[in-house]
Structure formats: C-alpha cells, structure tokens
C-alpha cells in the first residue's frame, strides 16, 4: 500500500547518491581505506600480543609444574607442596595473582591442592601427553589459565593462575593501539581532504571557465597551470577542441557574411531596377529591358542559392550521394555538349578524348564537377583557344583531366583556390556570366564525397590543368 511513496524515496536516495561530489567521494574512499588498514593492523597486532602472552604464561606455568613434579617425586606426602617462591615474581605478588595447584592420583583421587582452589580447577578428562612439543593440557577459563601435566604414577598435576597482570598489560596495549589508530585516521582523513581538494579544485576552475564559453565567446581558454598531469592533459585536449571549434565557427561566420555580400548586388539590381522603372511611365521597350535585367539578377541569385544549398548539405554531411553504376566518360560527354554554346560565344574549341571509365557514384553531381571545371576554363581562358577534356580509367580509379591555355593561376592564389567565394581576379570573368565564387568549392566537396582527390597544375601565362581522380571500387 505504501509502494508509491517507497518508490519516490528510492529515487531521491538514488539522486542523492548520484549527487555526491567527486571531492566527497575521494575523501570517503580515502578515509575508508585508512580506517580499514588501521583497524586490520591494530586487530592483528592485538591478537598476536594476546597469543604471545598466553604462550609465555603457559611456559611459565609449565616450568612451575616441572619444579612441583620434582618436588612431588622427592617426598612421600604430597600435602606439603608449595609453589616455588622463584615464580612469585613472575606470576605477580598481589593476592589476585596467586597461583594454585592440585594433584590427583591415577584413580582421580585428589592428593593435595593449594588452599584457594577456584571451582573450575578439576582434573582433565583427557590424559595429558608426556611427549611432543606440548607435553601438557592447557585450559583457560575466564582470566584463569591452567596447565595440567601427567605425574610419573599416571596421576595429574594442575597448576594455574589468574592472568590479571597480563590482562592489564593487554588493556594498555589495546588502548595505545586505539590512540595511534585514531591519530592515523585523523592524519589520513586530513590527507584525503587535501588530496581531494587538489584534484577537485582545478576541475572546478575548469568548469567555471567552461561555463563562460558560449557560441559568442569561443576565445576563452582553460587554464592548465599547476594542475595534476592528467588534468593538464584534459585542459589541453579541450583547448585544442575549442581551437578547432572556433576556427570552424569563424569560417562559418565568414561564409555567411560572404554569402549575404554576394546576394546584395543582385538584390540591389532587382530592387532599384523595379523602383526606377516604376517611377514613371516607360515605353514597352524599356519595360522589357528592365524585366530582362531583373530576370538575369534573379537567375544569378538562384545559382547562388542552389550552390549554397549543396555546400551546406555537404557541410552537414548529408550530400545524399546516389551510389549507382555510371561512366565518367559519358557524363563528361553530355556535360561538354551542353557547354558548347558557351564555348562558341568565346570561340573556344572543346577538344575531348574520352575512354570508358566506369565507377560507382552520383552521375548528376559528377556532371556538376565536369561543368564547373570546363566552364572555368572557358570563362577564365583566353578567347580563340582550345580546352582539352580527357576521361580515362586506370586499374583503381577513374580520371578526368581539364586543360586550358589560359592566363594561369598566380602561385599566391593557388592554395586558396578551393575556398568559398575566393576569386583569383574579377577582371578576368565575363561580365554577363559572373561565377558565384563557389564553383571550385563545390567541385572539391563533391570529389571528396566520392572519396577522390583533385590536383591543380598551373603556370602563369601558360595555362591550367585540373585532374580529378575518383576511386572506382570504394568511396565513402
């Protein structure tokens, strides 16, 4: 009937347990460990001491028994037996320490005994051995210890004494052990607190810093001074991760700024052209021109938006490549045919040398690669020249090579060629068909998504060669 409340309390308990801080966990485990060690050590030390004390007492009693036995052999009347004074010092002088004895004959008849015999001091049920390492029977009762040996006439001799003196000593030892143990425990606990603080503090400091790190403030770094090596390493790892994150974030910010910048010009044209045209009555011819201008700008925006979409898909890793069996040479052939009019306008000859190059990939995207590379060669190349396009296969890969005799790419620009919105020199583009500045970035992304590579060889004044290599069997 109380199960719901029970369940509730269990969860709180579990949460409570999970809420334990690292510091208290460390302290608890360290202190626990110290306590176990101290306790184990103390107990075994005490046990050993007790054992040794008993052995010592046994040996003393056995010695006294031997003396009594000799005494018994040398006289006829056992009643006059006295425990030798020699042992009084060893056994203790106080009345509570006084030893006692009793002698029985073979039939069990008591022959003699000391005056004050404790009630438990009776003869042994078993016959005491006369040989071996322990030629006696030892019996302990309360604080009393009795040793029983056989007499020469098959009787028994018992000698015993209270171990009061030894028990006092043992009590002292126990008290000392307890004191030392407590001191060790306190010292250990203090050490545990110190150690836990030392470990927990840098972690706490790091999490305080980490809390300040947001998408708007990625420049903050974790401090890694005066910390244990593992934590320093952790800080370095996190800092490295933050560096990577920041640079990718910065790239993203710059990319967004560039994208909006690229969109501004066509938007300006559409906006101002429409506003200007509508500001008064125009001739049909003027309206037509205005609409054409707007259309051209809108197309430019569409190209830009399309390219941006593909790039952002590539960035988020969902380019959704199709894996179909296709042939690079037929893809190239189709793409080049579509580019013929553009080449004609600049009087550029497109010279193809295509050999079958089968591969698994996305034909549409690969066609985009061909189109972008050839378009670049046409637009940035010199008029009245030839652009060579080759497709062929090698055992492991399909190749596409586009070569022009254009002005070439300056060495300083070559490392940035595949950066988004990077333009070598705007003057060389054809005004009507300005690129989006994303063409080569797209090529690089698509080729990379196919697991391939692209290489550029360009000399200023001589021309540019772009070689794409796509592995035929495996890709991501």
């Amino acid at each position, binding site marked *: 009937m109380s199960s719901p409340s029970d369940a509730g309390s269990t969860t709180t308990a579990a949460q409570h347990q999970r809420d334990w801080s690292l510091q208290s966990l460390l302290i608890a485990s360290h202190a626990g460990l110290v306590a176990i060690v101290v306790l184990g050590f103390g107990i075994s030390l005490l046990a050993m001491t007790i054992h040794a004390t008993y052995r010592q007492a046994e040996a003393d009693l056995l010695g006294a028994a031997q003396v009594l036995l000799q005494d018994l052999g040398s006289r006829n009347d056992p009643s006059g037996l006295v425990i030798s004074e020699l042992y009084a010092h060893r056994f203790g002088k106080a009345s509570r320490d006084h030893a006692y004895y009793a002698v029985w004959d073979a039939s069990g008849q008591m022959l003699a005994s000391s005056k004050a015999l404790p009630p438990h001091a009776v003869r042994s049920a078993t016959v005491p051995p006369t040989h071996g390492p322990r030629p006696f029977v030892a019996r302990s009762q309360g604080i009393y210890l009795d040793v029983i040996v056989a007499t020469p006439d098959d009787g028994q001799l018992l000698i015993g004494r209270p171990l009061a003196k030894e028990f006092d000593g043992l009590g002292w030892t126990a008290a000392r052990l307890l004191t030392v143990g407590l001191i060790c425990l306190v010292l250990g606990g203090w050490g545990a607190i110190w150690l836990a603080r030392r470990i927990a503090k840098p972690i706490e400091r790091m999490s305080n810093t980490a809390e300040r790190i947001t998408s708007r403030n990625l420049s903050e770094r974790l401090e890694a001074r005066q910390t244990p090596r593992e934590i320093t390493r952790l800080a370095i790892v996190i800092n490295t991760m933050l560096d990577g994150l920041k640079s990718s974030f910065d790239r993203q910010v710059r990319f967004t*700024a560039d994208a909006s*910048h*690229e969109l*501004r*010009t066509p*938007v*300006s*044209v559409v*906006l*101002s*052209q429409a*506003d*200007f045209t509508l*500001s*008064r009555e125009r001739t049909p011819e003027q309206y037509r021109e205005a609409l054409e*201008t707007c259309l*051209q*700008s809108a197309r430019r925006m569409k190209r830009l938006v399309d390219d941006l979409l593909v790039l952002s898909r590539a960035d988020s890793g969902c380019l959704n490549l199709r894996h179909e069996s296709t042939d690079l040479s037929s893809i190239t052939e189709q793409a080049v045919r579509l580019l013929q009019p553009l080449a004609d306008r600049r009087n550029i000859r497109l010279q193809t040398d295509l050999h079958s190059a089968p591969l698994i990939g996305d034909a549409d995207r690969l066609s985009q690669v061909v189109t972008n590379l050839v378009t670049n060669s046409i637009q940035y190349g010199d008029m009245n020249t030839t652009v060579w396009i080759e497709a062929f296969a090698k055992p492991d890969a399909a190749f596409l090579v586009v070569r022009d005799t254009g002005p070439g790419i300056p060495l300083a620009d070559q490392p940035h060629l595949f950066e988004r919105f990077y333009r070598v*020199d*705007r*003057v060389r583009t054809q*005004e*009507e068909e*300005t690129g989006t500045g994303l063409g080569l970035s797209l090529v690089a992304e698509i080729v990379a998504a196919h697991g391939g590579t692209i290489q550029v060889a360009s000399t200023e004044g001589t021309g540019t060669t772009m070689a794409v290599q796509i592995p035929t069997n495996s890709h991501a």
Partner: protein
Amino acid sequence: MRILVIEDQADLRRLLQGILEEDGYAVDVAADGADGLAKAQVWPYDAIVLDLMLPKIDGWDVLEQLRETHKTPVLILSARDALADRVLGLDIGADDYLSKPFERPELLARLRALIRRTAGQAKSTLTIKNLQVDLIGRTITRDDEIITLTAREYMLFEYLALHRGKVVTRTELYDHLFDENDETLSNLLDVYISYLRKKLGADVIETRRGLGYVIPE
C-alpha cells in the same frame, strides 16, 4: 551636375546611370578601378559613386590615390556593410557611405546633400532676388507660382545658383553639365541661358563678356 559611377557589375552600372541621368545629372561610368581613377583625376566631377570590390584597383585604393590630389565628393556604394568597412571608408576620405541593397530616393538625396554641402550651402532652399529655389524638390517658385524648367535648364541654373557671386566659365559649365559622350554643340549653352532668362527674368543671370556667367550675390 556631373557624376562618375565606378561599378564593375554591368547591370548595376547601367541602372545607376539610368537613375542619375533621369534625375538630370550628366553621368560618366567606369567598369574598373583603373579607368575610374583616371577619369576622376581628369574631370571635375561634382560627385563620384564608388563601389569597393573592383577589378584592377580596388575601391579603397582608388579613393586613397584620388584624395592625394582631388577633393571631389565621394559616395561609397558597397555591399560591404560591416561597421569596420564604413568607418575605414569614411576615414580614408569618403564623404558618405551607402550599403547595398540601396533605395533609389536615398541615393539621390545623399548625392544632392553631398553636392550642396560641397558648394558651401547647408540649407536645402535658397533665395535669389524674388525667386525661391527648392534644391530637394528641384522647383523654382516666384510669388507662390512654380516655374517649370527642363532637367538640363534646372541643372544649369542650380550650378550657377550654388556658385552665386562667382563667375563661372563656359568650360566649367560644359564640364559639369555634359557627360563625356555628349556631343552637344557649344552654342547650346547660349540657348539654355536664353531660355532661363526668358523664364526667370532677364536680370537673374548676368553675362561677363569673355569670362562667363554669374548670378550676383
């Protein structure tokens, strides 16, 4: 008033030319920084509209080199709208900064203000004899009655009015009123002057023989 537009984007360049010409300005255009800088150093433009991302010589350099020798008012019209860009542009020597996409009326208003301020005229209205000139509405009124002028007539009058008290030579008038492709005959200026005198009154514009024209202060 004559304006130079330096803009590499063909559509926008044509459009700006259209907008400014329709507003009565004489407009020269340049498609890159080198051409723009050369023109700006040769002609006495009343204002320059300058894009920043230009081929050959970029807008910053054009402005910097121009400022070494010329005080021509420059309005930067750029897609770069970051604060740092605007501050840098104005610091290098631009007189105004407008970011794309822009609104046509704002561009025209800023250019008018720029030209007015350069002529030392802060107010947007001025009075000459019994004529009220509204530099914004581009109207001239006499006794609450609007006098209709053609765009070119108005520009001629505005130029003389903004430089009133100073003799303006015929060459200066030509340089400021006609763009580089204009092949208007030189006696056309006399024709415009005579139209203005007919509409505004014979004594508004005086002729200084051998020197030019002046609207007395």
